[in-house]
């Protein structure tokens, strides 16, 4: 489904991703971990099409298409969804209007009929239940004045509405209380199917108790320096990153 080969990216001339290789198949959950500043959000942003990041080398294919050639909106329409680490507050834009426009543009791209107001409302209701998000929140301007946790929930709500094939959750767990974490994880699990895949960027093993990964990758200095199964996350939780850093510099010497 997603194939990343030797991906290098830089921002304002500074190299941040230094050769990422990653293969993701339908139905899989991949966890990406790694110390602050190692490039996790950069990877997520490059996949979603943020224009400040310049891809200097490598390739990314998504469902057989060259992802790097697509605009951010076309990536979303193809089924890529990024749950932002820091969702943007957009005053004056109503959550409902925005989502309906987005959904219908995605549907148009996929050759589906647009949803009318009634059908869209029904869809909203169904997905609101799934992530236990309050109606009041959605009647406000998009993310404006939302608490940290509310913003994260809203990301998962949007994901539920857009039904992506590849979801990239960038630290969706940070800022969530224990109950909200369970709700969000439960939402993600319910949306999981054999046809879609998830990349979970996180610092904490805790989330991975609920969203169980098939693979865990450690990103360091813009490279995946170690991959393993869910036991690797447990090991990181106990030992931190120093041993990996040592391993990396050990091989470098």
């Amino acid at each position: 489904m997603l194939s990343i080969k030797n991906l290098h990216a830089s921002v304002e001339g500074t190299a941040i991703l230094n050769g990422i290789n990653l293969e993701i198949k339908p139905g899989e959950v991949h966890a990406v971990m790694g110390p602050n500043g190692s490039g996790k959000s950069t990877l997520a942003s490059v996949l979603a099409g943020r224009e400040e990041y310049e891809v200097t080398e490598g390739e990314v294919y998504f469902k057989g298409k060259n992802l790097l050639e697509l605009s951010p909106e076309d990536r979303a329409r193809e089924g890529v969804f990024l749950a932002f680490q820091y969702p943007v507050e957009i005053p004056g834009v109503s959550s409902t209007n925005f989502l309906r426009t987005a959904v219908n543009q995605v549907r148009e791209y996929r050759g589906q009929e647009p949803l009318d107001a009634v059908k869209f409302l029904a869809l909203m209701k169904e997905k609101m239940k799934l992530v236990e998000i309050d109606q009041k929140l959605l009647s406000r301007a998009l993310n404006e004045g939302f608490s940290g946790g509310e913003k994260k929930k809203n990301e998962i709500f949007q994901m539920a509405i857009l039904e992506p094939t590849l979801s990239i959750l960038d630290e969706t767990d940070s800022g969530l209380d224990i109950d909200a974490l369970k709700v969000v994880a439960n939402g993600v699990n319910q949306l999981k199917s054999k046809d879609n895949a998830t990349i979970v960027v996180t610092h904490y093993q805790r989330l991975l108790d609920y969203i169980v990964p098939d693979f865990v990758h450690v990103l360091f200095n813009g490279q995946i320096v170690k991959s393993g199964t869910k036991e690797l996350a447990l090991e990181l939780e106990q030992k931190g990153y120093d041993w990996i850093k040592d391993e990396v510099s050990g091989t470098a010497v």
Partner: protein
Amino acid sequence: MSLSVKKDDKLSDLFLQTKPVPSGLEGFSGLKSEARQILLERGFPTTKNEEYKYTNISKRIADSIENPDAPSPISDTSQIESYRELLASIDGYEVVFNNGIPDLSQTDMSDAKFDAQLFSAMDASVAGRIGTIEKSEKDAFSALNTLSFSEGLFINIPDGTVVEKPIVLIHYVQADKNGDCIHPRYFVKSGKTSQATIIELTVYTGSQTVFVNALSEWSVAPNAHIRHYKLQDGHKDTLEVHNTSADVDRDATLMSVVLSLQAGMIRNNLSLNLNAGNCEGNMYGLYLLNGKTHVDNHTNVDHTQPNSDSNELYKGILTDHSRGVFNGKIFVRQIAQKTNAFQQNNNILLSEDATVNTKPQLEIWADDVKCSHGCTTGQLDEEALFYLRARGMSKESAKALLLYAFAGEVLDKISIEPFKKYCEKIVHERLGGSY
């Protein structure tokens, strides 16, 4: 002997010829000769004048205006189609200004709880109010209007009257030829505890170069609540100056909303004198500029007594080679303690050649006041744009959605629903969104 005429004398030559005071307006001859005297002494502003530093409207007028007198009246304004649908949906009291001259013959006043009089037929008791709120010494174009108006309208909203339907002032402008100008003039006197909404539209038929030099005075009595919405939507060869001044008394509110959409050049001078306690002056503006349109909003709010509030929000979206100017003066006199004054001017530039000059000017002499001001000029928020696109919205519709949200904050101040809808629709179309 050849006389060399200096360029900036052209306006004096054009406008300051002595002519008789129009019949019926003899009572204003003193006011008019004072205005003429001021113009003779001071002339018209150039960019050397601080107040007109960025707005060389004198030159634009000198270059394109040829005729100091209003063009002949339009034979039948009821045949003009523009705004028909809007006017029908507003269903207000329509008062026509025909090339600057108020024409009450078309206004259905049968159930109107206010009265309207022509200056030439007005009661001597109120004639003395004209020119007391907006004085000739304040601005050259204000003096020019006073010197040049050949009729005016006096609107009187009696004490305790709530005028339910909006009063719609429609300026129909039709030049005989390029280079005509008109000087519309009116005065609104609102009595104690009265309420009214005045909507003002200018309708240009044809594409001639015209100069509209309007002036209005507003007297807002204790506990009166008055709203004034003005739509400026001309074409690339319209030049407009609007001098608007209000005296606001205790417990009263005056709200002004000005939407500037198309023009060659517009200069709006808005002055609110908050003359008593617990009164409120609210000034809102939205300008969406393209081409070479130039819009200058100069506002002035004067807090002269304790406990008054002013709120101001002007927003602009500019593209192509357009230019926006904002200057907001706030005076808080020494005795005007407990004043609250807020001012904001925010601009989005969509092209490299569009410019904005914005300047807050605060003079605060009292110490126990809450004043704040801020101005921003920038591009569209890239983070927000990416967020919307990452959800599948096209770049164009994401842009339009963000711009519309930006503009919406001003449009939301309009409380007459059909007029608001109309403005929303044209702003929507202008921002090019298909969302």
